[in-house]
C-alpha cells in the first residue's frame, strides 16, 4: 500500500445518493503519470466515482461517502482536509465544455487569480503556457480578449483543459471530455492526453472502447456501481479475465 508510485487510491468506497447506493466497495489505485480509463455502461457510476475524487459530490446535499480516498496516502474525506486546496491539486474537465462567460484570457487566468496569484506577468506567462499546452494557442492567440463563448465546442473544451492545467494540478479528472466533439477535435484531445501524461496523473471516463485503448495505460470496468475488473489496458482489451468484461468490450452486452 505504501507504494510511492501511487498518486491516488480509493479503499472500499461506498457512495449513496440518499438511500440509493451508487457505488459498492470500490478499491482502485492510480499510479503517477499514468492514464487510467474508466469504462462501463451508462448509469454504472463512473461520473459519481470521478466526482468523489475531487469531492465535487459534496455539492449534492443528500449524498454520503463511506470508505477512504487517499491522495498521496492522506484521506481526503478526513474532516481536517481543506476542499479548496484538494480541488486545486485534483483538477477536473467536465463532459460538456463549461467556459465562463468571460474572455478567453480571463477563463484561464481565473484559476490563477482565485489561487492568489496577482503578478501580472506571471499570470500572462501561465495563461500562454497552458493554452499552448492544450494545443489551442494558434487558434486563439489573436483573440484572447474575445468572449470564450464565441469558440467552437472543441475549442471550448480545450480551453477548459487549459483552464484546469493553469493551476498546475497533480491529478486531472476528465469526464468524457470528447463526447461532444467531432473526430478531429477528439483526436487533438487524445494527443493532448498523451502529452499531459508526462507530467500529470490522469483519470478519464470514456464511452469509447477505442479511445480507452488509445489513450490509457490502465482500464477499469464498472458495472452497476461495482468495479468489475481492472488491469493493464492491453491485457483487459485482449484477454479480459471475466465474461462480463468481455461481453461489454466486444459490444455483446445486454
Amino acid at each position, binding site marked *: 500500500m505504501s507504494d510511492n508510485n501511487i498518486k491516488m487510491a480509493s479503499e472500499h468506497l461506498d457512495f449513496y445518493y440518499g438511500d440509493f447506493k451508487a457505488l459498492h466497495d470500490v478499491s482502485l489505485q492510480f499510479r503517477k503519470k499514468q492514464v487510467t480509463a474508466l469504462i462501463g455502461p451508462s448509469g454504472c457510476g463512473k461520473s459519481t466515482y470521478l466526482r468523489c475524487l475531487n469531492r465535487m459530490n459534496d*455539492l449534492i446535499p443528500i449524498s454520503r461517502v463511506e470508505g477512504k480516498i487517499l491522495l498521496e496516502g492522506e484521506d481526503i474525506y478526513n474532516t481536517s482536509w481543506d476542499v479548496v*486546496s484538494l480541488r486545486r491539486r485534483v483538477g477536473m474537465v*467536465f463532459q460538456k*465544455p*463549461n467556459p465562463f*462567460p468571460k474572455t478567453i484570457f480571463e477563463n484561464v487566468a481565473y*484559476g490563477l487569480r*482565485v489561487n492568489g496569484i496577482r503578478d501580472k506577468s506571471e499570470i500572462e506567462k501561465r495563461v500562454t503556457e497552458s493554452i499552448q499546452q492544450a494545443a489551442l494557442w494558434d487558434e486563439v492567440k489573436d483573440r484572447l480578449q474575445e468572449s470564450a*463563448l464565441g469558440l467552437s465546442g472543441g475549442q471550448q473544451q480545450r480551453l477548459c483543459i487549459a483552464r*484546469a492545467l493553469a493551476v498546475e494540478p497533480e491529478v486531472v479528472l476528465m469526464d468524457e471530455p470528447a463526447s461532444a466533439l467531432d473526430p478531429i477535435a477528439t483526436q487533438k484531445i487524445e494527443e493532448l492526453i498523451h502529452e499531459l501524461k508526462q507530467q500529470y496523473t490522469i483519470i478519464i471516463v470514456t464511452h469509447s472502447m477505442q479511445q480507452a485503448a488509445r489513450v490509457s495505460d490502465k482500464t477499469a470496468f464498472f458495472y452497476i456501481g461495482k468495479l468489475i475488473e481492472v488491469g493493464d489496458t492491453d491485457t483487459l482489451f485482449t484477454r479480459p479475465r471475466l465474461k462480463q468484461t468481455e461481453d461489454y468490450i466486444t459490444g455483446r452486452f445486454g
Partner: protein
Amino acid sequence: MTGNRRKKAEKTMKSLFFIIATASVAVLGMIMIFLFMEGLPIFKEVSVKNFLFGKYWYPTSDPPDFGIFPLIIASISVTGVSAVMAIPLGVMTAVYLAELASKRVAEIVKPMVELLAALPSVVIGFFGMVVVAPFLQDIFDMPTGLNLFNASLMLAFMSIPTICSISEDAIYSVPNALREGSLALGATQWETIIRVVLPASISGISTAVILGMSRAIGETMVVLMVAGGAAMIPGSIFDPVRPMPASIAAEMAEAPFRGEHYYALFATGIVLFLFTLFFNVIADFISNRYRQVGEASL
C-alpha cells in the same frame, strides 16, 4: 366539413385575440394623447426651459411660478437614495436565497419577501408616518421626520421585493456547470458567487434594479405621505422634499379645470412618464444586449 369549421373557429379566435390586444394598445395610446393634450398648453405660458429648470414652484401665487426643477430633483434624489439602500439589500437577499440558504429557509423567506410587495403602498406610507418619522425626529433631533430620507427608506422597502425576486430568478438560471467549473479550479463558494455567478447574471440583475427604480420613481402614495412636501431643492437628505407624483396628487383636486396650474400638473405628468419610459427602455436594452450568457452552446 369539420375541418372547415375548425379552421373557421381558429380564425375567429385569432381575430378575437387580435381585437383584445389592440384594445389595450389603443387605451394606452388614448391615455398618452390625453396626457399630452392636457399638458402641452402650459408651454404657451412658460418656456420648456423655464418649466424644467425653473427653481420656484408657486403655482397659486400671483403671478404664479411654474418651475418644476425642485420636484425633478426631489424625484431623482428620493429614487437615488432609495436605490443606494435597496440595491445591496435586494441583491444580497437574492444571492442568499439562490445560493446560500437551505431549501427550507428559502421556502420560508421567499414568500415573505414577496409578501412585502403585496403590502399596499398606503400601508407603507402610514408606517413611515407613524413609526419612522417620530423615530427619526427623536434620534437625530430634527424638526420633522417626514423628509427625503424617510421617503427613500419606504421606497426602498417597496422596490426590494422587485429587485430581489427578479435578481433571484437571474441568479438561479445560471447553469450549475459554471459553478462546478469554478469550484473545481479551487475557488471558494464566495469567489464563485462574486466572480462567476453574479457576472453571469448581471443582465437580469440590472433589469431587476431598473424595474425596481422605475417603480420607486412613479410611486405616489408613499412620497405624498412621508416626503414632507416642501417644493425646495434639498440641501441634505434630511430635508423635506416634494417629488413629482406627490405634487400632482396633492394639487390636482384644487387646480381649476383647464387652468394654468392644471396644465402644469399634466406637463409634470409628461416629464414623469418620460422618466419611467427611459428606465424601461434601458431595462429592455440591457436584457437584450446581454442575453447570451451562461452555458456555452455547441
